[in-house]
């Protein structure tokens, strides 16, 4: 049986198959090479690395600098001492600063907000208020 089968020869690829198959494969090879070239050029370009460095720098700034400059958190409302409230109201009224100063004085005296270092007048008010008590 095997001898009988071996007597027959299988056909060869048809005319033109070589060119068709190889043309398609060459095009694929060329496409792969171009894609690779593009990636290589990107990898080797200064602009790519500068952009990457800039992104890293911005990220670092965002991570480390932002908390330092961030707005202090709003103090949670607390039940203030009536004496403190009255004194803050009186002092704020006498200075003409109104409810804003009054709220800050209450927060300061109740210990829920750190004193603002830039407001000289406010510090003096606080000193006075503490001495009154």
């Amino acid at each position, binding site marked *: 049986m*095997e001898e*009988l*089968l071996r007597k027959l020869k299988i*056909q060869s690829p048809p005319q033109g198959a*070589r060119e068709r*198959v190889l043309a398609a494969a060459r095009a*694929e090879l060329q496409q792969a090479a171009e894609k690779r070239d593009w990636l290589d050029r990107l990898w080797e370009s200064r602009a790519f690395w500068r952009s990457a460095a800039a992104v890293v720098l911005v990220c670092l700034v965002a991570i480390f600098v932002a908390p330092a400059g961030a707005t202090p958190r709003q103090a949670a409302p607390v039940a203030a001492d009536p004496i403190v409230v009255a004194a803050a109201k009186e002092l704020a009224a006498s200075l003409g600063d109104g409810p804003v100063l009054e709220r800050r004085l209450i927060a300061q005296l109740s210990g829920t907000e750190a004193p603002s270092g830039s407001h000289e007048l406010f510090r003096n008010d606080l000193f006075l208020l503490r001495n009154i008590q």
Partner: protein
Amino acid sequence: MEVIGADQDDGASLWLERLAEGDPSALEMLYDKFAPQLYGYALGMLGRPEAAEDGLQELFLNLARSRSKLGHVRSVRAYLFVMLRNAIWRRLRRDASDEFSVDPAAIFQRPGPAGLPEGAAADIESALAKLPAEQREVILLKVYQDMTFPEIADVTGVPANTATSRYRYALDKLRALLPPDLLQEK
């Protein structure tokens, strides 16, 4: 495990290395050396010249796409047959609903060898077409590609014993399918 055709590569592994470096002339070298055997296998499995050429083209496209992995291939012939087999079986599964059909005079060269009755090639093509694809595959690899059973096992991914028994079953079926007068030919 036996490495199929490792001694038959004749420097083909160097062509794969050149292909891995992007040299298109390596494709031509590989085609000229292996295409006739690969095409024969694809033609016997698929039964139609255009389908066999598609399989061959898919193989060469895959070679171009996966060129960066080609440096580690031990046997080029085995690698090519396995790649082509994957393409063939994908196609066979995709076309599973279609009846397997062989184009007239598609597989074997015509005229047939002297001493064989006219129509013998057509009878054998028709009988091969009636075999299950796994059995037809073993016949094609053993008889027409001169592979040993361990080599067939490497390509098809089955144990060598399974390949051997598939071959025996296939021969039995062919004997049953072919005209008795053809079997008495010497």
